[in-house]
Every structure is written in C-alpha cells, then in structure tokens.
C-alpha cells in the first residue's frame, strides 16, 4: 500500500493515521477470516463430532458491540484532529486564486501574474488556494500533500498546504467533469527561496519540465486589475473606496468585517459573501441600503470577480 511522498507536515500526520488504520484493519481481517478458517476446519462435518446447541451469549455480544465502537471513535477523533489541520490555513498564508475550467487549471497570483496548468509556490511557506469553477464541478487534488477539495461553480472553496519538498508535484482533477477529465492535469512547482525570488522578479526559471517562460514586463497586481475593473464595470458609481457615502456600501474596511443585513442578520464579509453580492445582490441586502443593484452574473468573469475581490481585500 505504498503512498506517494509526503511533501507537507500534514501529509506526514496523515500517513501516521493511515498506517495505524491499515494495521488495525489487518488485525481485524485476520481475526475474522482467521477465526473463520480455523472454525471451518476444526468443526467440519465429521461423524464423531456432534454440533453443540448454542443460541447466544450476552457477554460476548456486548463485548463485540462495544470494542469496535471504542476503536472507531478513536479513529474518528484522530481523523478529525488531522482534518482540522488540513482545512484551517494560517493567517499569513500566501494566496493564489485557482479557476477550474473544462479542462484546464488557471492560476492568478496577487502580483498579477496568470499561469495555466502550472502553479508556482515557495517552499516552507503556507499557501492558500481560493478556488472557483467556470463551468462544472472539478476537484483539486495533490496526492503528495494528501489534500483535495471540490471546485464548485457559483462559490469559493479553499485548500491550503505548506510544502516541505521542492520540486514538481502532480495535480489531478478528481471530480468527473466530462470528455477530458483524465487529462485535466497540472504541475505544482515548489520553488526554493532563490527560485521563488527569481519567479517573483519575472525571471525565467531553469525548470526542465516547465513550459512557462517569464517576461520582465511588470504587470499590474491583481488588486490593481480589480481597481481598473471597478471603473470599467461602473461599480464606482454606487460604491466608494474611501468610506464616502454613495447609494451602495463602501469597500473601505469591508473585507472580513461584520455586516448587518436588512433582515437583522449579521454576516462576515468573506470571499463567498462578496461573490454572492456581485452575482445575486439582493440575496443579502445590507441594512440601510435599497435593492438597487442589478445582477452581474455573466457580466463579470471568474477571473474578474477574483480581481475585484482582491481589490476590496486591499482596502483595509
């Protein structure tokens, strides 16, 4: 049952739990099948041997109900502890936005770079991927990190990891998405500190398998792209970025703040809230504002929503 290399600390924890359960399963398999084989040989039909009339034994029945229950509860707790580590990204994580499309992976970096089917991240630094899909459900799967998360149209999901092993790691699409599902593969490059600095500066990396060649032309950052989009799409007519009053709520200090809605509910203005407010503005109307905004579903693309949200995040 060999596993892929464990290229994060979480993956190492995952492996411990996995092997514990493998051996526990081997024990129970031998217990059940071993007992079975022993019984059918020992008690095979023979003239001299008469079957004994037994209809049950309460003590035994209680034991074999409770012991497995206790063991699976231990496994459950252990599994949950590791799972919590898998899903809660440290606050200082580097953020990369991922868009799944039939049948490729697109990556948007904070500094404005965009890559297709190749993701570049630094070693020993937590990375959080904020993912969405342009069409159907995909699933972002990196076996070396033991992480997987469905990428769902109409919402953001996220995944994080802190890679410890530089080099290339395989990315698969794990949720069936049509014709070329099995070819929706991508490469994840974990770069050493030096390479990461080169990549950030836009210099070409000396990676044998990579197809990417970088140019030195500085591109606008993702947030800058978002600011430009706000002008183009007309958002600024109703939303200010400096707190001044307009027909719609301001973007200033909006991200991760508590927002009181017209119906009295209080929500956190996280990525999924911002996305919903762009696509379905009336779904969570902010208290004190009228239902004026039209839907922008289909008018802004996945990439553009990502840029707009990056801009709102920068206004803290």
């Amino acid at each position, binding site marked *: 049952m*060999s*596993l*892929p290399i464990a290229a994060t600390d979480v993956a190492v*924890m*995952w492996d411990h*739990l*996995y092997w514990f*359960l493998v051996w526990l*399963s081997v024990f*129970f*398999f031998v217990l*059940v099948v071993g007992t*079975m084989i022993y*019984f*059918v040989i020992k*008690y*095979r*039909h023979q003239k001299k*041997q*008469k*079957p*004994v*009339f*037994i*209809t*049950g*034994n309460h003590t035994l*029945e209680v034991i*074999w109900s409770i012991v*497995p229950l206790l063991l*699976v509860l231990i496994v*459950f707790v252990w*599994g*949950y*502890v590791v*799972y*919590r580590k*898998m899903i809660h990204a440290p606050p200082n994580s580097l953020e990369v936005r991922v868009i799944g499309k039939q049948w490729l992976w697109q990556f948007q970096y904070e500094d404005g770079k965009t890559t297709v089917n190749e993701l570049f991240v630094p070693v020993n630094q937590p990375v959080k991927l904020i993912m969405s899909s342009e*069409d*159907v459900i995909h*699933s972002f*799967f990196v076996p070396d990190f*033991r992480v*997987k*998360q*469905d990428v*769902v*149209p*109409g919402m953001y999901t996220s995944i994080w990891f802190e890679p410890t092993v530089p080099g290339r790691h*395989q990315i698969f*699409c*794990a*949720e*069936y*998405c*049509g*014709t*070329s599902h*099995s070819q929706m593969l991508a490469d994840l490059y974990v770069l050493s500190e030096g390479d990461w600095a080169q990549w950030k500066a836009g210099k070409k990396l000396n990676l044998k398998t990579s197809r990417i060649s970088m140019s030195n032309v500085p591109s606008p950052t993702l947030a800058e792209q978002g600011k430009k989009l706000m002008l183009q799409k007309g958002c600024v007519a109703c939303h200010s970025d400096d707190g001044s009053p307009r027909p719609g709520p301001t973007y200033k200090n909006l991200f991760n703040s508590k927002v009181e809605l017209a119906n009295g509910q209080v929500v956190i203005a996280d990525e999924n809230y911002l996305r919903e407010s762009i696509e*379905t503005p009336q779904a969570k109307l902010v208290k004190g504002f009228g239902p004026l905004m039209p839907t922008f579903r289909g008018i802004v693309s996945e990439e553009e929503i990502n840029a707009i949200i990056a801009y709102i995040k920068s206004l803290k």
Partner: protein
Amino acid sequence: MSDTQTMHYLNQTTGIWSWLKTLDHKRIGLMYLFTVLIFFLVGGVFALLIRWNLFYPNHGFVEANTYNKFFTYHGAIMVFLVIIPAIPATLGNFMLPLLVGAKDVAFPRLNLFSYYLFVLGALIALASLFFGGADTGWTFYTPYSIRASSSMIFVVLGAFVAGFSSILTALNFIITIHKLRAPGLTLGRLPLFCWAVYATSIIQILATPVLAITLLLLVFEQVFKIGIFDPKLGGDAVLFQHFFWFYSHPAVYIMILPAMGVISEVVPVFSRKPIFGYKAIAMSSFGIALVAFIVWGHHLFVSGQSELANFIFSLLTMSVAVPTGVKVFSWLATMYKGSIHFNAPFLYVLGFLELFSIGGLTGVFLATLALDVHLTDTYFVVAHFHFVMVGGAIMGFFSGLHYWYPKICGKMYSEKSALIAFVLIIIGFNVTFFPQFILGAQGMPRRYWTYLPEFTLLNQISTVGSWMLGIGFVYVVYYLLRDLKKGEKATANPWRALTLEWQTTSPPPTENFVKTPVVTEWPYEYRE
C-alpha cells in the same frame, strides 16, 4: 418423467401467456431473475470493456467520450437494474411467501404490475443508448448533467419508473409479513431473511420517493431551466448531491441487507447449529436501516460542506461499524462447535466474509475525515464499494441462488461445477479489485479514461483479474441453466433445513402448500 406425475407451479399451466400474465409470486420471481441476469451480463460486458481500455495508459481502445458512457451504463445498470432488485425482487419474491407459509404475497396483481414497471423503467433507461448515450456517471452530478446530452433524461426517467417498482414491491413485502404469516409463526420465530427483507423494504419505501423527486427536478432543470441546481441560473450545485445521496446511501443498505439475510439463513443450515444471537441479528438490520438515513453527508466531505456537518456525518458514519460487526461476529459464532458442510451456498458465505470484511474495514478509512480527503474520488473508493457491493451483495445473492436452486427448479446443481466457479470468482475478484486500493492510495482518480504511466502495472493486474471474474460469472449462469435439465432430482428438503419453504415439495405447487403449515417452534432449532 416426474413432471407428468406431479403438478407444480412450473407445469400447472403452460405457454408464454401463462407466464406473462401470471400472478404467482414464484413465476414473477423467476421472471425478475431472468431479467436481472440479462442486465448483469450487459453491465458485466461494460465492465470488461472499461478494464480493457485501462490495460495501457493512453490505450485508446475507445475514445474518451465512449469510455465515459461505458462507466455510466456499467454503474447505472449494475446499481438500478441488478444489485437493488437482485435479492429482494428475485429471491425475496420467490421465497418470502414460502418462508412465512403463505400462498402468495399480499397483492399478487400489484406484484406483477411492479415487474412490468421495472421492465418499462429498464427499457426507458436503455433507450437512451439510441439517443447518443448518457455520459454523466450513474450519480448524475449537477451542473455537468444539466449541460450534458439530453439522453441523460431517459436514464433518469428510467430510474424514476424502476424506483416505483421498488416502492411497490417493498409495500407488498411488508404487508405480506404482517398479514399472511402461517399460524404459530410469531414475529419471534420469523426467519432472519424475512427480517432483513422487512428492514430493506422500509428503506425502499422511505428513501426511493426522494430519489424520484430529485430525478424529476433534474429533468425539469434540464428541460425548463428552473434554476435549482445550476449556479448559472442561481441554483446550488451541491444541493443535488445532498438529495441524491439521501436516497443513494440508504440504497447501499438496500443492496447489502437482503444479502446479510441470506447469509443468516445459510450459516445455521450448513453448520447444523442454531443461529447465534437471533435477536441481535434481527435488530441490527433495523439499526443499519436507521443509520442509513443519517449518514449521506459522508459522500460530501470535500464538496464544500461545512466543517460542522463533516464532523457530524463522520461521527454518525462510524456507528455503522456496530450493527455490521454484530452480524459478522454472530455468523462466526454460529460456526463455532458446528458440523460444517461445504456446499456451494456455504462457500459463498466464506467468500462473503472475506470480501465484506475488506469492504467494511476500508469503509472505516473513508468515514475518517482526514483520510477521506485524500482517498475520496480515487480508485480506493472504487475498490471499496466493489468489495461491499459485489463482495457483499452479489456473494449473498449467489449463496441464496444456490441454496434455493433445488426448491426453485426441483433439481440439484453440480457441486463440482459450483466449486470451480467459486474459486475462479474469489481469485478473480481479489485480483481485480485489491490492486485498486493501492492505485487509489497512490492517487489515481476514478473515472479516468487514461492514467499516468506509473499506474500501469496495477491496472494490468486488475484487468487480468476481470477476465477471471467474467469467466467465473458466466460459468455459474452456464451450469445453473445446464443443470435445469441435467441436474439430479431434488428432494423436498435436500439441506435438512427447518424453515417452511423446505416443508413443501420441490418445486412447490402453485399455491405453495397443500395444507397451511402450522409453526410450533423456532426455525433454527438444530439439535443433532
């Protein structure tokens, strides 16, 4: 020659219409059996084509779109047209009235209607093949299925119609068990197969309507664009998965519980000993049926479901281990100090225990939150559910088929042929599916038309196994048909069993018993 002397359900009336219009539960059971075996063959051919395409990476035996249809039809046929009806509709139909000492099921006409509904549903589903074929996978996940070819609608409507057959059959069984038991057959003396069918029927009645509504909504979504599941129309893509698994997880227990019921009958008969822990086994069927309804979310651990929901569903899923363990340990304890006879029904019990243990234990891996994140949607899951569905449900089905073969057709099957087939199936099965656990742990995702070169060897082993498995299954069907003519004549009770079906002739007369049987003791009173 004996056929001309004694009248029984097979020769009392003759001609094709006497079958197509029959109200006899035994004949209806046989028609189901015939139909299910044909679909088993068709689904099996799809399986072999899938495995052959995976013999090499980039094999290109068929193109990706065709391959995607192969696994869609393999899954849909095997789930909806084979494993779900396999035991309840065939052996259940045939045996339940006999086991409770009744002349027939409570509503024979409804029973025949259910059969035709099932056939109609199957034909509608397969009609999709003439409209380009569906490629959504048997799970029909949105929004992919909404955008897919409209032939998906046929498969969905077919499953919808077949679902009603399943509901009506379940209704019939529950009422039969309540109202038509022979004098003296108290609930405490009810054979365990009946308890298992009862628990299964409850799930079928409660869960299948949810599937029906969900599938109908899916059709509405595609045709009328109502915007329930499609995010482009303001719908929720993951909602479909909740609806779908709210039925389809219980469906897993619809498949496995009747098989467990068969095992509970076969073990005591061939161990010549009472069943160990009758009450616990009967109750554990209901425990499983109850838990079946509250664990569907374990299919959605990486779907974007909340952490709290994942926590609860993982915890609840773990509880399945208890009733399942109770059954397995009780069967083992039944063998203890018995006098074991290695006839084919018992061989399949051994097969069941080996394969189902692996299927059940790997289920714990998938119920464990962290482990599921890496293993879900890989070949590990494919291997797991084949060990449970084939290793559990089909082993139970084959055990029951051999056990009741003499009663059904009045002939004995050949033990020698049965042993050869059993060995082929067990080895073939393990060779096919065990490597898939390793493939999955290494990260090979499921529903892949091609794969990375490092997965080649294990895929080839798996494909070779599928050939053995295929030969084994075909051989079973072959000798069971052959022995209809060539088999030795069966006595009324060749296994010396105590349940009521063995107290009438083989094959039974049209109304099962010449005189209504009176039950005076427990069906597992084996004292030798």
